[in-house]
């Protein structure tokens, strides 16, 4: 308990999470990758599982996430985090394993690996940061890029006629029997961030109970490549992304009865 001033007694109610390393991130100012990190770390702290957790970083802006989490970590090849996590978890069935993947990583190059991890019901948790763009490589189109969205590889805006429409991975993976918990949340405001944290907790609980594959998709901002100020980027999530990627619970474990009340696969907004 840190005491700031003599009177009145001030107690820290929110502190830097123990499961983060205190290494400043390389993320752009206002990028919500950082929020996701913080939430995951807070949940790990609260569950007391830091020493039992193994993360698997992917390739994307979050490639260095291993630097920021105070847990064991592996750094996977682009798109292959779910395969690598399969190896890690099968060899460590009693540990908590999670992957942290971007939309290019998970929905494009790694589409087969994420689908089959879900099909097999691999008992690990996927944190899927969907920012509708390839952040790290400088803003190319992702499978989740919105129709009409300008990116460096869709300079006139994404044209569904030649490049397709945004791919909704949560809805897709929820179809698969092996998936136990698949939800979509957003990081665009305090209310949503709080909901996102609950989902992260729930996903790791599902894993701890051995119920199978769990995934929390988090709508995230990329102020840099969207060409928006950080706050405007949050508004973009709310106004442009959420309508295309509705928030909701797409798959909940059969038992215990779903707390949130949303039926599996309904896609009801949280």
């Amino acid at each position, binding site marked *: 308990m840190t005491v700031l001033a003599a009177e009145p007694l001030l107690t820290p*109610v929110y502190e830097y999470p123990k499961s983060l390393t205190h290494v400043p991130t390389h993320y752009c*100012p206002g990028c919500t990758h950082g929020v996701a990190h913080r939430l995951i770390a807070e949940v790990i702290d609260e569950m007391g599982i830091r020493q039992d957790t193994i993360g698997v970083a992917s390739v994307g802006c979050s490639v260095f996430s291993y630097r920021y989490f105070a847990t064991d970590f592996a750094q996977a090849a682009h798109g292959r985090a779910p395969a690598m996590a399969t190896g890690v978890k099968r060899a460590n069935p009693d540990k908590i394993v999670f992957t942290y993947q971007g939309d290019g990583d998970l929905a494009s190059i790694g589409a087969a690996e994420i689908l089959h991890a879900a099909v097999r019901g691999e008992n690990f948790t996927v944190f899927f940061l969907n920012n509708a763009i390839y952040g790290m490589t400088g803003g190319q189109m992702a499978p989740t890029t919105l129709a009409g969205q300008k990116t460096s590889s869709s300079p006139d805006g994404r044209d569904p006629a030649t490049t397709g429409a945004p791919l909704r991975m949560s809805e897709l993976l929820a179809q698969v029997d092996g998936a136990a918990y698949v939800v979509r949340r957003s990081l665009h405001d305090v209310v949503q961030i709080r909901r996102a944290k609950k989902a992260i907790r729930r996903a790791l609980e599902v894993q701890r109970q051995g119920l199978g594959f769990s995934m929390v998709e988090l709508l995230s901002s990329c102020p840099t490549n969207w060409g928006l100020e950080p706050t405007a980027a949050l508004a973009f999530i709310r106004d442009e992304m959420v309508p295309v990627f509705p928030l909701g619970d797409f798959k909940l474990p059969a038992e215990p009865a779903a707390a949130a009340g949303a039926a599996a696969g309904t896609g009801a907004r949280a």
Partner: protein
Amino acid sequence: MKGTVTVDDALCKGCALCIPVCPKGLLRVASERFNARGVHPAELDDPAELCTGCEMCAIACPEAAITVYRAVKA
């Protein structure tokens, strides 16, 4: 004083996401100074001690740069 916050200068990137979320409008960008990474960090501007320690700012901060304190009944 119900609460207060500190901003870790070493972590803050000056993104200003914390600023609009404070219900009392107590945070501001310190435009007169730079931190080591060359940005203007956020800081609490709460002379009237209005901060409630509601944590909204901390929840919004991508860098976990904000520590929130609340007064306890001594």
